[in-house]
């Protein structure tokens, strides 16, 4: 099985936010929640970089570890998913997540956060693949259809890569070799405890 990962080549991201829009549309993400967002570091300074970030689907995911009701599971593809039926909306995953992925519907901070929502790598949830119930709770299940997450699929500059970790790491390495520079795979050390060295 492949080990699915995201890789954002910050030297290519042009901060167009197409990934953000694609995600919201493809998954019918609830109002107020952005499963993916683009953050620009040192905005306006020479050397600014933009990074598109969602859930990194960590190896040994912290959210999964701290969840008091065991709502998370990691699929055979290494995708970290959760069950909204099991989630109690306690907020522990969002204390633990290094990437700010878990979010809650804005029905109120006080007491009732609602069920946690986060990037599913366009892989749905525990419901049967492609079912209406799955779509309603988690959005599209493109992975079951043999497609990659839409954010990466429609990235115009191919800054955001999704796919098997080794394959996308090799693509990145080849790029760095060819162009002669690379500011690294953002978040990889934190998420996968590895970096890409070319």
């Amino acid at each position: 099985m492949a080990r699915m990962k995201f890789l954002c080549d910050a030297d290519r991201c042009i901060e167009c936010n197409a990934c953000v829009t694609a995600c919201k549309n493809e998954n019918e993400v609830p109002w107020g929640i952005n499963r993916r967002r683009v953050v620009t570091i040192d905005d306006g300074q020479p050397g600014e970089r933009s990074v598109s970030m969602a859930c990194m689907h960590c190896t040994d995911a912290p959210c999964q570890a701290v969840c008091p009701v065991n709502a998370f599971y990691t699929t055979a593809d290494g995708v970290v998913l959760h069950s909204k039926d099991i989630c109690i909306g306690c907020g522990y995953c969002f204390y633990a997540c290094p990437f700010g992925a878990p979010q809650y519907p804005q029905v109120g901070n006080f007491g009732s956060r609602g069920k946690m929502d986060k990037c599913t790598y366009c892989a749905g949830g525990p419901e049967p693949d492609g079912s209406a119930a799955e779509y309603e709770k988690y959005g599209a299940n493109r992975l079951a259809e043999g497609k990659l997450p839409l954010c990466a699929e429609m990235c115009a500059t191919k800054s955001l890569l999704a796919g098997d970790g080794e394959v996308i790491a090799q693509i990145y390495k080849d790029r760095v070799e060819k162009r002669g520079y690379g500011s690294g795979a953002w978040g990889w050390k934190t998420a996968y405890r590895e970096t890409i060295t070319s």
Partner: protein
Amino acid sequence: MTSSAARLCNVFGALALFAFTLASYTATAQQPQFVDPTARAVKEQQLLQRFDTIRGRGSIPDTKSYTLEQPAGRDWRHFHEVTLRWIGAVVILGMLALLIIFYLSRGMLRLESGRSGRVIVRFNAAERFVHWMTASCFVILALSGLNISFGRPLLLPLMSPAAFTAWSEWAKYAHNYLSFPFTLGVILIFFMWVGGNIPNRVDVEWLKRGGGIVGHDHPPADRFNAGQKLIYWIVVLGGAAIAVSGYLLIFPFYGTTIATMQKAEIVHSVIAMFFIAAMLGHIYIGTIGMEGAFEAMGRGTVDINWAREHHSLWLEGAGRRTDPSPPQTAAASGE
């Protein structure tokens, strides 16, 4: 004349253009062949070494999402998964073990002079109401809190995930909403009993002579002895800390970040474990640990002999304040 001047102008112009082209050509030649656009680019590892989070600017209204990375969650995770469970297990099981050993060796401490049959009011109805409101909230808060810390390894294997979620969700609601009466109770307890709980010289003497449940002596004590004052301050200060840290968690991002919420959770949970252990001791002394103690908070009255043995100064004071026979009036009102 004008035409020759124009010609001269053209020649100068051509010369200037030539010079400019030459200059710009040399400038191009001086530029390096290879440009590294990342030379001044922000680097992830440098940012993480300098700050504990990487923050930037985004284009969606949710400013919280401008934080790109915050690896501190890993440390917090270790605390939550390992450190906290050890603290909780050692403190709570340790206290339970201590109480069991104590009970097996000393049993219930009896009234040395037996019951006189006459009683005196110790806590009036309002005091008892506040005590039991705070206490019942505390028990539910403690159980629902322990469920968050220990439920997954201990309780989840015993029931279905759906049932555990249903129970945990109710426990979470109870934990959130009962925090309000609990906090109110702690505030009322503070004002209600602060007068009798300022440490003084009597407490030093009491501690020296080994008063209370541990020693065998009955040193003089006022309405609250040193042990009870300790419990009082644990409830007031511990309750205040636990309430403040808890409300920071109930209202996320009201003056907090993820990092402060992690710290608030650490403070909240560690104090909670010690609080639970302290209350186990309190419950023990108030029930099976000491004869005649429970009725103080149960019925509100205590036997005169109990008061004489444990709170001699308070009894003397009560005798002075009410005359000539306080026990009868007390018995009537403290029904």
